[in-house]
């Protein structure tokens, strides 16, 4: 039973990080219909910014997280301005290839600067908590609490603020948004900034129990894509629920089936689901 709850905890940890990353991805997709293959690289850059500022400059964990969020948000906006905006009317293959180009560039750049070796990110929260007979590393609690509070903040932002509701409006109906005079450029930049910041925070939360290296975003971005396909591309609750589904599937699959193949579970799930329902699990199937 204890082992079972341990897996629940693992699933929650994984699921909350997956959800956070998938949220950024799904927001960008909802607004611009760009599958941003570079999102995993943004996540990786976020981890590196936190790592460097903490290790090389001795900055506090939370300040480092904030710096990473700002830096990656700026980077994401730059990508939008310099790459995705010019490709707005290009054939659909082009923006995907450009996103891949950005990803390859960022990874190679980081690798050239800091090498390919694995690094461990320090965290001030190393104690092990003992809750109801279960041993829980504090960082995991932090991840779950941090990720879910960030989701809550994002939800409030989208629902309660003017800027947030413009983003939602544009995600729902792009032409309509133009008609009522929404500044599409501003919304696009805003969305990319949020998506980048979410990735950076996710990376800073998750990296201490994982490792930091140039290819760390690869698997994550692919899983995030699986999640938003499961949850319906562009859907915010879908990203969170999808993230949890994959998180739990991996935690339990890895434990009860095979650790070797736990990374395949998400993709196998995707193949099975798309074979049965080509438009994804929660899509409304309008087109």
């Amino acid at each position, binding site marked *: 039973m204890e082992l079972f709850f341990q897996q629940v905890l693992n699933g929650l940890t994984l699921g909350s990080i997956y959800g956070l990353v998938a949220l950024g991805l799904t927001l960008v*997709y909802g607004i611009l*219909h760009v*599958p941003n*293959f570079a999102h995993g690289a943004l996540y990786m850059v976020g981890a590196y910014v936190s790592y460097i500022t903490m290790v090389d400059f001795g900055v506090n964990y939370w300040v480092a997280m904030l710096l990473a969020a700002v830096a990656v948000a700026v980077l994401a906006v730059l990508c939008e301005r310099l*790459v995705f905006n*010019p*490709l707005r009317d*290009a*054939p*659909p*293959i*082009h*923006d*995907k*290839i*450009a996103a*891949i*180009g*950005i*990803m*390859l*560039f*960022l*990874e*190679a*750049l980081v*690798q*050239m600067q800091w090498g390919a070796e694995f690094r461990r990110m320090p965290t001030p929260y190393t104690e092990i908590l003992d809750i109801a007979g279960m041993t829980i590393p504090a960082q995991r609690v932090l991840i779950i609490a941090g990720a879910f509070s960030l989701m809550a903040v994002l939800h409030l932002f989208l629902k309660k603020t003017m800027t947030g509701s413009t983003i939602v409006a544009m995600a729902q109906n792009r032409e309509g948004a133009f008609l009522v005079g929404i500044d599409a450029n501003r919304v696009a930049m805003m969305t990319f900034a949020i998506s980048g910041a979410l990735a950076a925070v996710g990376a800073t939360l998750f990296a201490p129990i994982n490792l930091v290296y140039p290819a760390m975003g*690869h*698997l994550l971005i*692919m899983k995030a*894509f*699986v999640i938003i*396909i499961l949850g319906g*591309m562009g859907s915010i609750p879908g990203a969170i629920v999808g993230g949890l589904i994959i998180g739990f599937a991996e935690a339990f699959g890895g434990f009860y089936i095979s650790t*070797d*193949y736990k*990374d*395949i579970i998400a*993709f*196998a799930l*995707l*193949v099975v689901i*798309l*074979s049965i329902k*080509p438009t*994804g699990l929660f899509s409304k199937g309008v087109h």
Partner: protein
Amino acid sequence: MNALTKISNFLMTPAMKMVMIVAALLFPFVASNEYQIYVMALAFVWAIAVYGMNIITGLCGQLNLAHGGFFAIGAYTLAILTVDHGWAFWPAFIAAGAVGALLGFLVGVISLRLKEHYFAIFTLCVGFIIYLLLDKWEELTHGALGIINIPAPSGFGLVDFTETTPFYYLALAFMVLSIWLASRIAHSLLGRTFLAIRISDDLAASLGINLMRNKVLAFVLSTTYASVAGALYAGMVRFIGPAEAEVTHTFDMITYLLVGGIGTLMGPLLGTLAITWLTQSLQFLEEYRMIVFGPMLVVLVIFFPKGVVGSFLAWRGRRLAAAHDANTAKQAAVSKTSTDKTPATSTQEAGNHA
């Protein structure tokens, strides 16, 4: 007719093809060392796979990100059959193509029901599954160790394909065959059918084209190309590991395709050769090549989405059209003044020969 026009016309003639083939045949004699021949042969092998990608992505418009995975499947099929099961090279080679086609069919039937982005993401995942399986399924694939001592293609006692130069000619022969078939397809009704799907699924369906059947056909063709290229690669390098299935190879091939000209006939070859030699001459770049390739991909899709060959064809097409218009105008003027002039030859040979 100025020099530029003459050159551009010559580039389109069958004579140009002969020039290229002769140049390729002579290359081993002018190469300054064996390594150059080796690099060229390797480039030919990759070019075959890129032609496959051009069929599904260039002609049919579906971005297949599992292409590198199918290349690896070809390589592994050959390696497993020859090393672990004692098959001779050529039967294993044919089996590799067949396995690529069969798996391509299975993956295609599922994935091609998905549109655009979904298809790209799905194939990215398929590529990753292939990589994970090659890496983890040790009983079948030898896992992370890879497979060593793969035999070279059998020369039936006539030639020795473990030598670089004979293998070079073998790779050249396969590449020429691949280009020949690709050109047959591209210029036929079948190629036009694929192209209609690239423009839009809705348009193609409204023209009575069965989307699923044609997309699956294009996909199977492309995976067959990839796995044949992979099998040749295994016979050339003679050692393979799970890294062959890494998605970077797919991205490399996209770069080749984009530089040369996506959807054109000579583009894949030109792009593959140009980038291969560029990376060779910038050896220090090998590991960090993506610092250059990444931004290059972005710049290409924004500013030169047609690539070298595509831009050339567009330029030439416009010139031909302008010449044709000028001709017609002249004829009209001439026929007004005097009625018994023979009309000039028409320029209706427009640009679909490159």
